[in-house]
């Protein structure tokens, strides 16, 4: 009977290790947040072209990560991409409403992300506001096309 208890303890620890591992994979590896919902605020921005931007991409300011992209959809009114992002609530009401958002690339082949730059206007961005001044992703084919057509002139 004694031996059986040890057996059950071993199996229990084994299954517990599996569950803990899955939690680790969820939180640490895939970055699932379990944060309180109101420690972020939401901004949207419309881009003419998002290139390879994907949900979960980071949003940075001066290179520091301050949030992530949560949703990308096509705006049926203007036929451009509407990007929804969640930023740390520490910056709620701190960014001026003429801030600009640009889609940047980490390194030559890296992941695309959004870089925010603050403007100088006295009014601030709050939850649900829209960033109007945006800069679309650099698409290599378009650059080459421009270059070639300029050469031809």
């Amino acid at each position: 009977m004694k031996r059986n208890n040890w057996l059950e303890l071993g199996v229990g620890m084994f299954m517990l290790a599996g569950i803990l591992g899955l939690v680790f994979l969820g939180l640490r590896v895939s970055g699932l947040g379990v944060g309180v919902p109101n420690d972020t605020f939401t901004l949207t921005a419309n881009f003419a072209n998002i290139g390879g931007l994907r949900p979960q991409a980071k949003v940075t300011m001066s290179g520091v990560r301050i949030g992530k992209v949560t949703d990308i959809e096509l705006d049926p009114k203007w036929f451009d991409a509407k990007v929804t992002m969640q930023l740390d609530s520490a910056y709620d009401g701190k960014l001026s409403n003429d801030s600009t958002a640009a889609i940047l690339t980490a390194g030559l082949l890296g992941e695309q992300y959004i870089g925010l730059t603050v403007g100088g206007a006295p009014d601030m961005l709050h939850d649900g506001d829209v960033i109007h001044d945006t800069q679309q992703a650099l698409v290599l084919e378009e650059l080459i096309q421009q270059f070639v057509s300029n050469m031809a002139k």
Partner: protein
Amino acid sequence: MMRHIATLGRATLDIVSSIGRAGLFLFQSIFCLPSREGFHLWIRQMHFVGVMSGAIVLVSGLFIGMVLALQGFTILVSFGADEALGQMVALSLVRELAPVVAALLFAGRAGSALTAEIGLMKATEQLTSMEMIGVDPLRRIVAPRLWAGFVSLPILTVMFGVVGIWGGYLVGVDWLGVYQGSYWSNMQDSVDFVGDVLNGMIKSLVFGLVVTWIAVFQGYDLIPTSEGISRATTRTVVYASLAVLGLDFVLTALMFGDLG
């Protein structure tokens, strides 16, 4: 000439009927309702099949993660993209290597043992005597082993993945000097819990069922001689490995095929 054709036909019939037997066997044994007694049998098998396979899975996971980081670093650094190391290690482990390698190790470590154990029970006519005294061997012997394999392989896969990512961290960050923050944050940006982690889990559930099924069936269906046991053990490892690799391609095509 006629004899050759007849042999071919017999071989085909044998294969088809053994597939049929395997299907019936799975169907009969997997629906044995758990009783208190069955639970204890299952625990004992979990210990043998799962816990005892832990060591080999952990050690292999650690080394595979370390090798992956080392190889990945030397390639990525020539593109100046060594910061994507965490992403590469985590994605390849979670999507492919953890389910597949854990299943292969599991087939070698636990599957062959299951086949040999049940095979010896059959050779020494323990299974027949169980039937004689009114105990269903499918319920008493096969079902706990089948369920233990089905439950423990996903757990082993998770452990493999976690240890592998840690091994990649050891080599990539502590030894080769990739910045720790970008190791984790690139990983978190690119790994999707549902798309990557849960799909890997689905894979390992399928592999767990298939590997244990093959192992237990080979043991139950073998010719009860010492040569039959050795053949069946070999067949278990060969069939299970082939099934895992083939199914992995099919599952990958279904899960990730449309990502381009």
